[in-house]
């Protein structure tokens, strides 16, 4: 099977977010960029599918400034075979990103399945899977908690609100957006980390995948940092603390 995984590079979870000078985005200097932890689940799912289907390959796709090659290599260190990267501007929106990914997929000889993570730990929009499937003309199932892979279809369990689950059967090729926790991502191996540094990552320009600046349909401006808040730390032993907290919830906050 020709298995693809779309990944994203995001600021490390512990990074302190600061704004850039004109408030059009975050300051990117000094930020540690990593493979999105959501996407590790997608990479793992792809690797497991490859292991069950001899002769399969896993190719990792990403877009962004050149630094995203590092995230592709991180996925290769987990075991992915190939990497493809489309250079897009730092300010690219999801529409442009998804269209570039779909364009890169269309350039491939045969695509059997595309995995995406729940994703978007930075902008938090989590829409690239659906946009990309629409551009690629593929069906898409998101929020997948577990999947059974058949020869020509995949049966997915997806989580919706209210403790309910939908079971959906989807023909291949398809885009499968996995939920965090679908599997337990493996750690990168030292040997693969060393090897991945030597592997080629195919670099493409926007024109190679049929996108241009006009595919940007939204524009961010005016970022603002969220204001801090003051906590009332309640002191004393367990009984005193509990009594005081419940009193405050009743009398001050009036929420119970």
């Amino acid at each position, binding site marked *: 099977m020709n298995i693809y995984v779309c990944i994203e590079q995001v600021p490390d979870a512990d990074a302190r977010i600061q704004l850039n000078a004109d408030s059009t985005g975050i300051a990117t200097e000094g930020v540690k960029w990593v493979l999105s932890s959501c996407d590790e689940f997608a990479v793992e799912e792809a690797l497991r599918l490859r292991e069950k289907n001899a002769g399969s390959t896993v190719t990792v796709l990403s877009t962004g400034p050149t630094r995203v090659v590092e995230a592709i290599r991180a996925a290769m260190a987990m075991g992915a075979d190939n990497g493809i990267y489309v250079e897009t501007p730092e300010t690219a929106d999801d529409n442009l990103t998804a269209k570039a990914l779909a364009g890169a997929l269309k350039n491939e000889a045969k695509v059997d399945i595309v995995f995406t993570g729940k994703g978007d730990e930075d902008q938090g929009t989590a829409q690239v899977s659906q946009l990309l499937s629409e551009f690629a003309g593929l069906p898409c199932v998101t929020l997948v908690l577990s999947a059974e892979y058949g020869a020509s279809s995949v049966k997915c369990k997806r989580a919706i609100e209210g403790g309910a689950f939908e079971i959906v059967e989807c023909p291949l090729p398809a885009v499968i957006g996995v939920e965090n926790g679908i599997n337990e991502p493996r750690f990168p191996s030292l040997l693969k980390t060393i090897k991945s540094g030597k592997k080629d990552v195919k670099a493409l320009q926007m024109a190679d995948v049929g996108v241009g600046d006009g595919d940007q349909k939204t524009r961010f401006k005016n970022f603002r940092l969220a204001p801090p808040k003051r*906590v009332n730390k309640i002191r004393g032993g367990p009984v005193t603390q509990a009594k005081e907290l419940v009193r405050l919830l009743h009398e001050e906050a009036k929420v119970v």
Partner: protein
Amino acid sequence: MGGTLVIAEIQDGKVRKSTLSAIRFAKQVGGPFAILALGAGVGAAAQELAGFGAQKVIVVDDAALKSYTCERFAPTVAKVAKDGGWDTVAVTASAFGKDLAPRVAVKLAAGYAADINLVKVDGGKRSYRRPTYAGNAFSWLEITTPAHVVSVRQTEFAAAAPSGGSSPTETAARAPDDAAAARVEFVSLEVGKSERPDLGEARVVVAGGRSLKEQFNQVLEPLADGLGAALGASRAACDAGYAPPEVQVGQTGRTVAPQLYFAIGISGAIQHIAGMKGSKVIVAVNKDGDAPIFQIADYGLVADLFVAVPELVKELKAQS
């Protein structure tokens, strides 16, 4: 003619409460709006939706739309929007809305503002505010295409109340399925047996972190039971298997904004905070007084949760 087309979320013939947040959005931006009721057997739902002051309720009632798959729903939503000349399509950012909206946006060649928490109209120009970088920052977004697709945060757009009157209804036909994608089959719906309210709609949420280990339910359930609360969890607790993934609160989980949120043994990683910082009152219980959760909590107990929570349960009973 412009105006907003609100997509109703209908399950088993009933209007989901999430719909009312998208209606609130339509009222806020002003101008005419219509509500699209699509599904199978949505007559009663359409009647209910007629009471919200919409210019009309558009009904697409078709057996093929009995269960949601975006390959069947998105083409119809796009067609109704185009045929009616609605320049904005609005839906609430539930699992349904988040799945559907991007597909509709591509079909309409529209820019998409996802999961917004505020809208500002200035001289006819609209800006959408959304949280980014796990709620550490806000950004204002402008859409550069004539058509807009918007999903709104249920927790920040209060449910619209019925405004009386009765909007006329009209029917529309379903659009053909996507050629490449029409074979996605909805197999079944499994509904959990939870007696608890849904996380997104609960007035009180009791959420726990990884430090609860196997005692997650044993410690938190008595507290949740006493308050009629929904149970939530940090991503670390879900990833470790102490709580099911669907109750994860945070950037990559559910977003909640209850009246009262208990963060029990949750250190407060920014990704978690992103999913609950809109809560009215936040109580944090953590052994580590420097845990970041205390930076956004209203009330904090620096305490061993295994002692503090049972004590709290006792005290809530005593003072109720």
